[in-house]
């Protein structure tokens, strides 16, 4: 299968008062169509910069980002985004919030079709009955669910998530992981999940990419094969534990606290 996302030799630096601050250094990532890819790495290593580059919100200094065989030079409507802070437009109902992308991305849907699509998605993430509520009436977890619906309502090829569950409590987070699997079963998208929760990356992703410390480059790629299981118990199987262990070790290398070959 062709790669949907191809990040080729991307190098990027931010301009600061103290000279350029390199964040990405010759980064290469490929994600096949339909795959779910998690990106982990030490904090401040340029993970969020990566999302902006894929979304076309920023241009890399060097290297190229390709989506669907096309070079990304500006934002494109085939991308959906979800952030750690699930910003909702407080003056709109939940359903109107979810339908926001359809007001911007050109489409041939009628008003009724749009509403049906929004209601379907909300039901899929367990928000049936909350369509006409205001965002201020929802909990953090519910807002994040709605924000996921908004990110995929226009059927994007790519869903980019920047630590979407980072601000949630542990149990809500686990609920949302399962919601994520439910969405993947229904909606065909290629996912990029930026996270610093290793268990989250192993549970949700087909491959986990470990970035090195700043400036970030691809340090390790871990293929996760858990027999397609999506129940939470899978995290506690020996296979998953082994992967987690390897990832943990890679993170320590990225943090500069261990060297390759040394026991973690």
């Amino acid at each position, binding site marked *: 299968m062709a790669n949907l996302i191809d990040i080729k030799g991307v190098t990027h630096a931010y301009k600061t008062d103290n000279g350029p601050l390199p964040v990405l250094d010759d980064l290469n990532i490929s994600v096949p169509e339909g795959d779910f890819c998690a990106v982990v790495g030490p904090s401040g290593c340029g993970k969020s910069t990566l999302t902006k580059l894929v979304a076309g919100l920023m241009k890399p200094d060097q290297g190229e980002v390709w989506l669907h065989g096309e070079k990304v030079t500006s934002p494109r*409507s085939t991308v959906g*985004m979800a952030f750690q802070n699930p910003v909702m437009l407080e003056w709109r109902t939940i359903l109107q919030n979810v339908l926001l992308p359809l007001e911007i*991305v050109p489409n041939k849907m009628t008003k009724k079709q749009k509403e049906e699509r929004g209601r379907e998605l909300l039901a899929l993430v367990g928000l049936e009955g909350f369509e006409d509520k205001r965002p201020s009436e929802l909990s953090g977890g519910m807002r994040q669910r709605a924000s996921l619906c*908004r990110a995929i309502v*226009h059927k994007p090829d790519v869903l980019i998530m920047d630590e979407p569950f980072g601000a949630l409590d542990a149990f809500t987070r686990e609920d949302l992981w399962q919601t994520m699997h439910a969405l993947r079963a229904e909606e065909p998208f290629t996912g990029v999940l930026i996270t610093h929760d290793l268990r989250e990356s192993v549970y949700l992703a087909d491959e986990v990419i470990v970035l090195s410390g700043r400036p970030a480059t691809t340090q390790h790629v871990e293929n996760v094969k858990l027999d397609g299981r999506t129940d939470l118990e899978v995290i506690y199987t020996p296979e998953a534990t082994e992967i987690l262990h390897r990832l943990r070790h890679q993170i320590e290398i990225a943090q500069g606290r261990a060297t390759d070959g040394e026991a973690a």
Partner: protein
Amino acid sequence: MKTFRKIATPTIAILIFLAFWEFIVWVNQWPNYKMASPSDLIPAYTKYWNLFLIYGWQTLWRTVVGLLVAVVFGTLIGMIMGFSRTMRDALYPLLVGFNAIPKATVVPVIALILIGQHDLNTVLIAFMISFFPISVAVSIGLSTLEPEYRDILRSLGASKWTIFWKIALPKTLPEFFGALKVAVTLAFIGTNLMEIVEPHGKGLGHLFDSGKINADYPLMFAVLIALAFLGILLYYIVVALEKIFAGWAERPQG
């Protein structure tokens, strides 16, 4: 029941205030040239009711027009300052300086520049005194927009105009209405400054002046109360507009 309470509570408060005022004047046995009491005002209103209507209308429309100009101009300046850091740095000291100038000193200057154009002058002062809070509120509202809001729309390829129309504008409305409530009372002060400092025979300021000249003290107090009434009226119109356009910002109590 809820609407009844909403109207009854402030009405009772006003009645208690009037009773207290009457009581203070009565206890101290003040003559009405020192302090008129509410009961002194009733004859003033019944005697001059047609003048109150004519002059009150002149004050009201000139204030409202000044306020509308302030809304348009203030929002525009606020937008410029909210979207551009450079413009914000450039305009803030100018605006603060301009706002710090006592408008009572500007009145004669304006009256001299635009001599004879009484309506225009009055509207101008009402506008000048009231646009500042609107500019500041709009600029703060726009410049504190969380970047995620912009990124959500930008990543879909939305234009700057769409981002402004769909997000920045509605997001700023609560701040805008907060400032408009302050601007309403300021605009009345502006109108009356022109009417009293540069008398030209128009508005409640003129009626106040003629009360002063004729030593009709109850009339002077009656004018002040009429101004307060107009202020309250306009304020609640703004509150009603706020409910319609920014009611979402009000969180349920408790």
